[in-house]
């Protein structure tokens, strides 16, 4: 199991993503990448979809990556890593390679929930041996904060602007984690940049399996969420504490909620600190939207509890 010391030690041994990249002040993405990569002992190959992470870490002629790294078009991280993994397996079969190499794909929510879903689903179904990490900041931040299907209801984005016609994004976010669960792969989990030890443990558990593994990691974007740059970690933590973003995992079909907040923190506490939800606190309609938002968070949490109860390890053992 990971702890802060082992993680720090790994960072000292090999800096897999170095500083000097141009991600924004307050962006939590590098913490996710470092924690994921530092939790894997074997050599890794990384595929990276187009997005903030890719653009800001690979500006010619420099790179922040100290591991073999490949970029391809927006929708193709899963397909590209599948090709790399297939080539690796071919080399193993031909006896040209012997050592164990692990494969990781990083993509944002736009590149995963929307345009990359087809490639992700295909790679999961074919059963490639790789870890897919969706770094989810809930909109297309790299192109200027357009809504994605990970953007929560009521959030104001540049293509779901608050106005007379709509109160921010009219639709609910897609439940991608459950879509991935439906592929019946060995390991699926939700994590948050606020809980790095939990994230690290999840990567370790995931990498114990051959085959596809998936992590959906919530990360704050101060630009798109319109939050203070020094609150990215507390903001992500609040998303967990309010049960908006449950930390859970599905291991071989068995559900486990990794953290159950002891007291009920209203989701308003998380929403009210973000500019993208500010309009909800200014009108009577906003008040009812807030109530609906809370109801939806509660409903999702209850459903997850039931899944944990029904599809628990105890049942599986029967």
């Amino acid at each position, binding site marked *: 199991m990971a702890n802060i010391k082992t993680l720090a030690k790994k960072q000292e041994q090999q800096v897999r993503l170095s500083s000097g990249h141009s991600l924004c002040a307050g962006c939590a993405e590098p913490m996710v990448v470092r924690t994921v990569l530092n939790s894997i002992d074997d050599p890794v190959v990384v595929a990276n979809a*187009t997005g903030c992470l890719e653009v800001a870490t690979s500006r010619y002629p420099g790179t922040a990556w100290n591991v073999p790294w490949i*970029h391809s*078009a*927006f*929708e193709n991280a899963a397909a590209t890593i599948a090709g790399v993994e297939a080539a690796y397996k071919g080399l193993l079969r031909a006896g040209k390679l012997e050592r164990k190499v692990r494969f990781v794909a990083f993509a944002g929510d*736009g590149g995963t929930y*929307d*345009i990359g*879903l087809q490639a992700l689903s295909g790679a999961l179904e074919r059963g490639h041996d790789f870890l897919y990490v969706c770094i989810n900041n809930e909109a*297309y931040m*790299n*192109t*200027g904060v*357009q*809504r994605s*299907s990970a953007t929560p209801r009521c959030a104001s984005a*540049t*293509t*779901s*602007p608050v*106005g*007379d*016609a*709509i109160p921010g994004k009219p639709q609910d976010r897609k439940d991608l984690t459950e879509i991935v669960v439906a592929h019946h792969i060995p390991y699926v989990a939700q994590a948050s940049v606020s809980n790095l030890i939990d994230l690290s443990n999840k990567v370790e558990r995931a990498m114990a399996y051959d085959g596809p593994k998936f992590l959906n990691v919530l990360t704050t974007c101060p630009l798109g969420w319109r939050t203070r740059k020094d609150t990215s970690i507390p903001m992500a933590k609040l998303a967990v504490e309010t049960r908006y973003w449950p930390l859970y995992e599905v291991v071989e079909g068995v559900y486990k909620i990794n953290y159950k907040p002891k007291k009920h923190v209203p989701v308003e506490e998380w929403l009210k600190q973000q500019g993208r939800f500010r309009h909800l606190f200014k009108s009577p309609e906003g008040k009812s939207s807030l109530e609906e938002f809370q109801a939806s968070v509660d409903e999702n949490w209850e459903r997850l509890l039931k899944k944990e109860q029904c599809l628990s390890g105890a049942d599986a053992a029967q």
Partner: protein
Amino acid sequence: MSRVLMRGNEAIAEAAIRAGCQCYFCYPITPQGELVEYMARELPARGGAFLQAESETAAINMVYGASAAGVRTMTSSSSPGISLKLEGISYMAGARLPGVIVNIMRGGPGLGNIAPAQGDYFQATKGGGHGDYRLIVLAPSSVQEAAELVMLAFDLSDRYRTPAMLLADGMLGQMMEPVELPDPIDPATIPGRPWALTGAVDRAPNVVLSFDLDPQGLKEMNKGLQRTYQEITERELRWEEVDTEDADLLIVAYGSMGRIAKSVVRSAREEGIKAGLVRPITLWPFPYARIRELSERVSTVLTAELSAGQMWEDVRLAVGDRAATPFFGELGGVVPTPRDVLSEVKRYANG
């Protein structure tokens, strides 16, 4: 009409709404984000439909669907996104569906960058997608012209039942200029769409289709397309000329580069060089005949592009060996200054 200061992307969006665009479908990509955002803000409020798709492929197929249903419709993107739309564009051409595609070009190939470039000329004018089809391609060189040409693109697309593209670049998309927006069209002037799928009540069912398994049938369908393309070539050629009457050195350039070339002609004339400019406005159809005609009277036809020389091929087809046909190009999103092009002009004028 009044002059307003607008960004190219926003002027294109506003002009499209004024042209009666009822449905707009998009997917985020730089450097055309402002077009998307303007449509998100404005189109629903003015009675139209705005939809952000899950991919460029989805967006162009939404255009296919909306067009078949009989409305004026548009999508916009930038180079890599247009690559994903090509399948849909070929299907629209085959099914004879009008619709406007805006490409705010950026540096390529691959992810390239987000700086202005003209590397998509081949893709736009030589097919791009599969099959024997042509795309009407209009290339503005100012924000004003971008607004006017996007409206023209809707008209031509409807008139000939074929998709049309506005081919601009990141510089035109991003720059702000005073623009006199044309008045909104009267929707009654939009040509009827008796072929559209509007519910076959009291009429025979319509068919919108891009395939025919019978080779003879597909041959006839293709011949019909070719007749249309011939008609467009005869009627819709557009270009601008500057100081061509007595020119000895002709520059051929379009879009942002055409604009740079205009200043070059002026500076060259000040230095006693008889330079002139042909700026194609329709890239397909291409003004071969006029360039051929002018090439009889000049010693040099210099093609200038923000590419490795794509339109250059068409210029050489037009000129043949009647004049020298050198090329000046910049790559990767680098934009030359008028002085860079002028020194090139001087080289050939003095040569």
